[in-house]
């Protein structure tokens, strides 16, 4: 095999592998990106039921209802709109009323957000940065938010 042919084989293999990778990435991008919304955005955008997204906001004080079983109901608010959430599983340690929370799941036709993953990320002010940003954008945020700090997850696979 001449040097030129060898180089051709090498370039060909590179292109094949790269092409496959790009194809996979583009395909995966379409399917597995998860957007992040606050309750107001959810109300405004009319998200289709069954679409997976992340909901962020504050846990409304007094809204946490622990049932007989392991299902918990609570409400997430950004001081403008509120969305009810149900979650089956063990809540993370840092989940507290009045503090920031990020839940991932789908909005069901009954208007309730079914979360299968609850992340309570907190900093010194117990506020997830994404939530803080949204609240700031709405002008309802008081106080200084600093990102950075531990995160714990309660997760249902």
């Amino acid at each position, binding site marked *: *095999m001449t*040097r030129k042919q*060898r180089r051709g*084989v*090498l370039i060909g*293999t*590179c292109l094949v*592998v*790269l092409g*496959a*990778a790009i194809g*996979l*990435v583009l*395909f*995966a*991008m379409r*399917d*597995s*990106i*998860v*957007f*992040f919304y606050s309750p107001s955005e959810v109300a405004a955008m009319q998200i289709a039921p069954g679409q997976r997204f*992340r909901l962020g906001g504050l846990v409304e004080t007094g809204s946490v209802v*622990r*049932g*007989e*079983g*392991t299902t918990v109901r609570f409400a997430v608010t950004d001081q403008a709109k509120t969305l009810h959430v149900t979650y*089956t*599983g*063990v*809540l*993370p*340690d*840092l989940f507290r009323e009045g503090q920031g929370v990020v839940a*991932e799941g789908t909005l069901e036709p009954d208007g309730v957000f079914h979360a299968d993953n609850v992340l309570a*990320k*907190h900093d010194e002010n117990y506020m*997830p*940065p*994404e939530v803080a940003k949204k609240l700031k954008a709405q002008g309802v945020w008081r106080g200084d938010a*600093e*990102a*950075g*700090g*531990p*995160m*714990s*997850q*309660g*997760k*249902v*696979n």
Partner: protein
Amino acid sequence: MIAETGHYALILALGVAIVQTMLPLLGARLRDPQLAAVAAPAAQMQFILIAIAFIALTTAYVTSDFSIENVWRNSHSAKPLLYKISGVWGNHEGSMVLWVLILALFGASVATYGTNLPRQLKANVLAVQGSIAAAFLLFIVTTSNPFTRLSPAPFDGQGLNPVLQDPALSFHPPFLYAGYVGFSMAFSFAVAALIEGRIDAAWARWVRPWTLAAWMCLTLGIAMGSWWAYYELGWGGFWFWDPVENASFMPWLAGTALLHSALVMEKRDALKVWTILLAIITFSLSLMGTFLVRSGVLTSVHAFAVDPARGIFILAIMGVFIGGALTLFAWRAPLLAQGGLFAPISREGALVLNNLLLTTACAAVFVGTLYPLALEALTGDKISVGAPFFNLTFAPLIVPLLIAVPFGPLLAWKRGDLVAAAQRLMAAAGLALAVSVLLLAFHQRGPWLAPFGIGLGVWLVMGALTEIAYRVKLVHASPSEAWRRLRNLPRAAYGSALAHAGLGLAVIGIVATTAWRSEQILALKPGDVADIAGYTLTFKGVAPHQGPNYQERVAVFTVARNGHAVTELTPSKREFTVERSGTTEAGILASWRGDLYAVLGDQLKNGAYSIRLYFNPLVRLIWLGALVMFLGGAVSLSDRRLRVGAPKRAQAKVAAVPAGE
């Protein structure tokens, strides 16, 4: 006083680093050997100074000197000693000092032990290393000084994040940094070679031990982080595809490619451009990892406290070093002489394929990690890219590589016989296929691809054994002859076989845990019984307990199997009084078959508790595999041939290099 000494030492180290950078480069230009000779003592001096600073900071933590702001923010007098010490690097400023300490350690090691290096190369390498140190020391001294004082001194500190108060996590950063920063050596060597415009097989021979050491440390560091996440974060998972985890995984992938590329360069004087580029890319990814963690663009348990000014500084450092190195590469790479030729089907060809697949997989992880950041910067949309994306992109790229791995060592250099190699691997393939089919028959649930994943792991392990068997001519020679060959086999051969086998073990563990994990979420009252994966757990109740700096609620389970009591599991929830936050400690019954994993949740209305139970099959194999990979690297590193510096030009290469060398 100690803190001021430490601070002064850092500033002095900055000065020394600048000297270490400028003078040797000048010396190389002006061909003045005395200027060039400044590099080695400067590197050693720099290490001593930074060590002084590090010791000063550690002393401040151990003696709980709260007049130092860094100690006040991250420590507390009631903390156990181990965590006082590990608290030194559990925050941004302290971890940066650890970073430059390891950087200086590597530089000083080259200065002290690199006696076989050509003088000019050594001077250039140390100069580049010095420039990196200078940049980061400047960063520390101007934006991240760990020695700032508080007046008046507070009585006690704010404590360390309880989630970090853990033995495994204490040692995770040093190993991780040794890995990240260790790749700076390869980078320095690469840039030095580009500056000189010359590179040869001897260069690769010197680069390989450093790269191997860095790779080993990074492997262990990542494994420790994963293990810690598994038992500490309470949901029994070992990998989140978290951006910061990816930030450590990408240099590992690129570093693995670099390691193999350097091997080809050393043996065959080929793949020079690949090796240099990979050295630059690997360290660039390390720098990027540093940026991601400290810049505030990420929200993650790993993210350090933010300050956009620091982020911009590190971004500038990245721009200078990555941009500069790549520019130098574009300009000088054509100077590097074309190396040895090889056929596409050969060991070199296999390693080129290896490089290609690893770098593409790395690029896929790169895109998935940075896409959310880029999108948010451009459009303001917040998205998250998680496991589904990575499973869809990374797995299909890595599977062909795993299939190809056993073929590599069995192909000859320059021109290999693929059919012969395949024939030798028949036993391995047969066993792998048999295992897959058996599992497919037994395990009805779970993804149907999982048995083949296990088969892939078995294939890797058997492939490694096949390599050894082939080297000692197990089938063709007499047992005594084979035994003689076994004893005389170069350690590097054992090292590579071990490392590939370790990879196989890890693959088996990953596939088994991911595919066949059992999970139950229950509400249990004292006296209730739960069944999972052959174990019967009886819930005894929850009792309070006092720890050194926390209050604990401990749940007690008696675990039985086949009617016999096995052990007690005690998952608990801890409340740390000073830090006002809590952790969940899982109760784990570990065995090679798998881990029984129990998590205590909240108390429910009727006095029951929310309990989560998992059974993770074969999960220990993941970390055992990583450990075996580390051992393989260590065995390879101990090979004397690797440490003999200059190749002996006088003796002509005797006969043909035997296939499989």
